[in-house]
C-alpha cells in the first residue's frame, strides 16, 4: 500500500527526532531533534490533506468533475510551520545564552536546578 508510505515516514521521523532528543548530549543536536519532530508533524498533516480523486486546492486548477480537496490541512501546516519557526529561533537564542553562561553545550553539565 503505497498510500500509507507517508505515514510510515512520519513514524520513522518522529522516532528519529525522539531518539535525538533522548540520547544526544549537544544542545544544538537536541534542537535539531525537536525540529525533526516538528517536520514529522507537519508531514503528517500534509499527508492527511489529500483524498483520493480530489484536485489540488488551487482555484484555477479545480473545477469540472474533479472536486477540490479542502485546503484546511495546508493552512494548519503553514500555521504549525510559523509556530515551529518561532520556537526554533527562541530555542537557538536560549542555547546561545546558555553557552554564554555555562561555557558548555553539554546538556549534562547544565543542571543547576535540581532536587
Amino acid at each position, binding site marked *: 500500500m503505497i498510500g500509507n508510505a507517508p505515514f510510515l515516514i512520519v513514524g520513522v521521523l518522529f522516532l528519529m527526532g525522539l531518539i535525538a532528543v*533522548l*540520547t544526544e548530549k549537544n544542545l544544538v543536536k537536541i534542537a535539531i531533534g525537536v525540529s525533526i519532530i516538528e517536520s514529522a508533524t507537519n508531514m503528517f498533516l500534509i499527508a492527511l490533506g489529500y483524498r483520493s480523486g480530489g484536485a489540488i486546492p488551487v482555484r484555477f486548477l479545480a473545477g469540472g468533475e474533479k472536486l477540490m480537496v479542502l485546503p484546511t490541512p495546508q493552512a494548519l501546516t503553514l500555521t504549525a510551520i510559523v509556530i515551529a519557526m518561532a520556537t526554533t529561533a527562541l530555542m537557538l537564542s536560549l542555547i546561545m545564552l546558555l553557552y554564554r553562561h555555562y561555557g558548555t553545550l553539554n*546538556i*549534562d553539565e547544565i*543542571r*543547576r536546578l*535540581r*532536587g
Partner: protein
Amino acid sequence: MWNKVFTGFGYWDVISWLIFFFIASFFALWLRSIGRRDYKEGTEQDEIYWSGNPVPEDGAEISVPASSSYWGFRKALEPYYKVLVAMHSGHIRDYVGYYVVTAALIAALILVV
C-alpha cells in the same frame, strides 16, 4: 447567602466558625488580661534567656535555618527521599524520558483495557 454548604455527608457553615473564633478569642484575651501580676517592665524579667549565655547581638546567630526544620522527618524517611530527589536530577533527558515512557505506557494500555 448565609446558608450552609451541604456536601452530601455533612455541611459547612462559615458563620458558626466565625462565632466560634470570636468566643475563643474573647476567652483567650480574657485569660491573658488576668495574667501574672508580678510582671514588671524594664527589669530582669524582660531579658531573653539563652541557656545562661549572653544573647548575641545579631539575630542571625540564634535563628534556626529552614534546612534544619523537620530534620527528624527527613531522617526517618531518608530512603524515600533518596529516590525522590534522585528523580529530580536536573537532567533534561531524564525528564523527557519520563514523559515519553508515560505517554507510551498510557497509549499502550488504553488499547488493552
